[in-house]
């Protein structure tokens, strides 16, 4: 299309027309580039929409909000994943995500009601569930009953009874149920916890652990006027108002508040480190800053773990009025402390206590980076990572980088398990134990005293 054809009657080029024609022009240009592709090795063509190949998996996604979109982005990088159906009760997200997927070559149907999706889509292998917490159990259970494997976001549920029903449905149907505590599949965390802390015992006895997730003040989420859902439909799907529908995290009906939302990822690590569940908890918190919301906007909690080595304690805080320190976890042992965060720039090192046995052998094995090796802010051929933090003296950097989106390894683990080639890293039973530990923090705030856990509480 020539530029002249884009002019309106008054001779001006309309912005939208231009953007469309630019996209068309770009496409034809890149097409001519296609011939160049012959000159280089041909990649295996992703089969996004055609007949299903042996390693292809047909996937549905229910809940297309912020996290649904993150998971779709991360799963698009996994060979064989074909999005076939997406579902959201909100037309806005349905259109946005459906449109994006179709544009990038997926043959995807959109649904408002998950029951309709399950009734129509008979050849789905797996479903990803990323709705607000209160709907996880109902939807995940229906999917498993319909014969689909399920990847369901944390928190399993805001009610332990509903979370338990998910484990029971999983057992009954024999389908896979992976819960979205993605650190469980992150190679950096696996290296730090399984290899350095548990196998090599590099920190000695880990007497204490610490975690925090601090965020700046934030307004309630809004919505475009024209996409407001009418009250009849809100009622049908159980939302009191548009405000509660958008800001569900802050209301008891739908979620567990910040401590569950954010804390769940990190409190989950404490039982991974120590290989046991907590025995008691104290917590304080309150609705101290925001008005008109239900859940505590700050919670500080201490968990007690009775391990074979003795009693260890873990402190966790979630603040929503300051981002000081951001989010990270720290495991403190008698021989050193390991600091890690899902974003490596926020935590990626181990500090050695002066009296600790030498760590040189770990450096030799490549389990730690030797502390004296300066981090070079250079670009090597295959690892072009701009290092913007330099190692501080005495801190041994962790040797592993995750060069994929943070949720991708956990999704890969799930899809590998669906193909029968892996064991789930966070099956329902494990996530249930975490839900028991995490949801109790809200109870402890309400009770205002120390609460005990009984070992059988963690079992389904």
């Amino acid at each position: 299309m020539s530029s002249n054809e884009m002019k309106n009657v008054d001779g001006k080029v309309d912005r939208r027309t231009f953007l469309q024609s630019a996209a068309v022009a770009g496409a034809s240009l890149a097409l001519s580039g296609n011939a160049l592709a012959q000159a280089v090795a041909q990649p295996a063509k992703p089969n996004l929409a055609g007949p299903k190949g042996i390693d292809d998996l047909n996937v549905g996604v229910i809940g297309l909000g912020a996290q649904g979109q993150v998971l779709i982005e991360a799963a698009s990088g996994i060979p064989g994943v074909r999005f076939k159906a997406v579902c959201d009760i909100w037309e806005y997200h349905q259109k946005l995500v459906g449109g994006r997927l179709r544009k990038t070559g997926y043959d995807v149907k959109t649904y408002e009601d998950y029951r309709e999706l399950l009734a129509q889509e008979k050849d789905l292998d797996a479903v990803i569930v990323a709705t607000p917490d209160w709907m996880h159990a109902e939807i995940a259970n229906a999917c498993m009953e319909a014969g689909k494997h399920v990847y369901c976001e944390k928190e399993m549920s805001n009610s332990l009874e509903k979370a338990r029903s998910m484990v029971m449905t999983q057992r009954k149907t024999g389908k896979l149920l992976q819960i979205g505590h993605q650190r469980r599949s992150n190679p950096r965390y696996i290296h730090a916890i399984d290899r350095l802390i548990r196998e090599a015992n590099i920190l000695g006895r880990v007497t204490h652990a610490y975690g925090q997730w601090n965020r700046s003040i934030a307004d309630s989420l809004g919505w475009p006027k024209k996409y407001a859902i009418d009250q009849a439909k809100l009622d049908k799907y159980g939302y009191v108002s548009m405000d509660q529908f958008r800001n569900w995290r802050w209301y008891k009906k739908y979620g567990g508040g910040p401590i569950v939302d954010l804390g769940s990822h990190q409190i989950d690590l404490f039982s991974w480190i120590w290989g046991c569940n907590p025995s008691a908890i104290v917590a304080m918190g309150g609705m101290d800053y925001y008005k008109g919301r239900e859940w505590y906007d700050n919670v500080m909690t201490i968990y007690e773990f009775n391990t074979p080595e003795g009693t260890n304690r873990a402190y966790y805080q979630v603040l929503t009025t300051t981002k000081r320190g951001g989010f990270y976890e720290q495991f403190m042992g008698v021989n050193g402390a390991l600091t890690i965060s899902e974003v490596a720039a926020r935590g990626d090192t181990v500090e050695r206590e002066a009296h600790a046995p030498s760590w040189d052998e770990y450096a030799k094995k490549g389990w730690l980076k030797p502390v004296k090796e300066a981090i070079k802010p250079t670009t090597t051929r295959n690892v072009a990572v701009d290092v913007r933090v330099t190692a501080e003296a005495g801190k041994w950097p962790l040797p592993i980088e995750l060069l994929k989106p943070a949720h991708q390894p956990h999704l890969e683990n799930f899809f590998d398990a669906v193909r029968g080639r892996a064991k789930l890293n966070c099956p329902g039973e494990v996530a249930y134990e975490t839900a028991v530990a995490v949801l109790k923090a809200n109870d402890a705030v309400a009770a205002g005293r120390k609460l005990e856990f009984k070992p059988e509480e963690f079992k389904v």
Partner: protein
Amino acid sequence: MTPDVPPLCRFAHEAMTTVFEVVVAGQEETYARQASAAVFREIDRLEGLLSRFQPVSDIAQINRLRPGESLRVCLEAFECLQLAAQVHADTGGAFDVTVGPLMNLMRDAKGNWQRVTDAELAAARAVVGMERLVLNPQDFTVTIRPATGADPATNVEVDLGAIGKGYALDKAAELLADWEIPDVLLHSGTSSVLALGHGGDAAGCPADQRGWRLGVAGDWSRQAGFDTVLLSGAALSGSGTEVKGQHVLDPRTGRPASNHLAAWAIAPSAALSDALSTAFMVMTTAEVNAYCRSHVEVAALVVEKRRGLLRMLGDKATATPAFAARAVPPGESNALRLEQNIASDGKTSVG
């Protein structure tokens, strides 16, 4: 009682190593704030996909590919690369998002230009070039071609710094359309400004002048004969030498771009104006004029540097007719200014 509608609401957010600002006209404050928050979340999402500094972004992943390898990328990264390829082709190679290795060679750690041998230059030029990226719109893959004339195993260094911020403004505008906010001005640290609808009196724009007044030309406004343009449904980007020094390199020669001291581009999309403002620094004035003749939707203003910096004041800033047509005579600009108004280095400002 209807809620108060302030004439303008302004919200700022740091992302992509700059400060984005949204200036909304004629909307209730809470609604404007929530819409801007949605815009800023979208810009953060885009930064995660497009920034080469984020090790897991599609661009960082492309930069780690070896020749012959392919990556399926997201819609957003693909659209940016497609437009970059388009501008590269349309400007005869004056715009090139793969130019990083040449920049690294030509400038020392402090960013000063340094002497290099012809052999060094040839080696760096061999690994640079948009043609090393094969974009396949059928499956959204990017494939890396081997470098010819250099170590064929060398990877590519894509940097969307000269197009990504503009692209983010375009995406923000799409989102604001969902929110039915027609009168809004968006800018990325003032280097690119996207003006939609009408700013109204508070933005220095009476009703008979539909649009937003944007300051341009900076120190060269006297030679240009105007310091403000009127814009609506279009974007303006500026590139210059003052703040960052001479930071633009001519990908066609590997040498510092020396044709212009500053350049501005007006285009229907901010991604395009962003890319073109850099290209116009590099191209000769004749090339810029030729480009604008064959792309009537684009307008240009460049400050020539024919006889070197000392004689600059005697030279004339050159505007294409389309640019001059949008100019507001100096006496008439009663301007609202951006806080980060750095108009003298080829950046733009709200006028």
